[in-house]
């Protein structure tokens, strides 16, 4: 019997120079996790970019077990396509609704 993986959703605030396209962000996050934890570690994260508002915020989904790995690899991220960038995890929650309800206020540019 398959055991359903428990998920966590992360709201990330994007502070950057220049523009970042969705694909560029995904590539950069994967590259960072892969560089830090290797291919095996990356395979365990079940990472997915659920939502992205250009240059403002993104919502990532990951396994509960891999949450710390994802946070760490976001912390070591410095550049996306040559542009300086910081990804700040504003909040973590078990559902997207709860995440938006609790933490969207922390991103002033987001319209609820």
């Amino acid at each position, binding site marked *: 019997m398959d055991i359903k993986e428990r998920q966590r959703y992360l709201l990330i605030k994007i502070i950057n120079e220049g523009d970042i396209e969705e694909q560029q962000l995904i590539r950069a996050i994967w590259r960072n996790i892969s560089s*830090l934890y290797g291919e095996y570690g990356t395979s365990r994260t079940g990472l997915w970019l659920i939502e992205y508002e250009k240059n403002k915020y993104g919502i990532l989904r990951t396994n509960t077990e891999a949450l*710390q790995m994802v*946070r*760490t690899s976001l912390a*070591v991220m*410095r550049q996306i396509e040559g542009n300086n*960038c*910081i990804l700040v*995890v504003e909040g973590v929650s078990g559902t997207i609704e709860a995440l938006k309800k609790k933490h969207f206020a922390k991103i002033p540019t987001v319209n609820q």
Partner: protein
Amino acid sequence: MKFYDLGIKSSLSRGQDQPEVMLDWAIELGYSGVALADFEDVSPKALKQVRKEYSPKCNIFTRATIIPKSADAMKRSLKELHNTVDIIAVRSGSAEKNIYVNAILDKRVDIISLSELSEFNCLDYSHFKMAKENGVIIEISTCDLILKERFQRSKSIRLMYKNCEQIIRANAPFIISSGAESKWELRAPKELIALAGLIKIPEKQATCALSNYPEMLIQKIRMMRDPNCIMAGVRVVPSEEEEKVGDTKDTREPEGDLDGY
């Protein structure tokens, strides 16, 4: 909970960004206090205006990091800087244990800084125990984890992990700092806690390293600034008689003023 990053650099020394820029970003990332580590050669007066401007939002401390070539050179630098900056940190810059031992035993030193690979190699459990007994705080800079890549980063993680294990075993107070030289190298407190997990520092202790231990150091600094303080732990307390005299003086002074009118 209040978080502190006690090791950021601005354009006053080796950093790339103005102190104001670094402070704005630190506040945005959620820090209640920062130490600008620029004051080995620069006078803290350069920061006077900025300090005034930011004082309600963020506590600003001045810090000097000494990298001496010998124990004597360290003592000379300590003598010069002791009364001019808030925090004095010492780094050996090499695998020189003697400098660290002298620094740990010197009451004027607040922080023993470990940021380069060679520095992580030279201290062990006994040094950390000694640091705990002398009230010296160990600083772990995460800049290597952020800035280095691949082989260099894995080497740093291994050495830092070995050191942190001993620091935790010795129960020595330690702080985690970003060592940021530009605004892009600053990280939010939660991100630094996550990075600490990479070197096997438990979350609870990493939180203490960003909050409780820096507060402990700040309290020590405030105590040292107190004119009644003679040395760490020794403070002049006015006797009851002196207090009474003080009280009568206080009541008389306004009367004198009124007489004048």
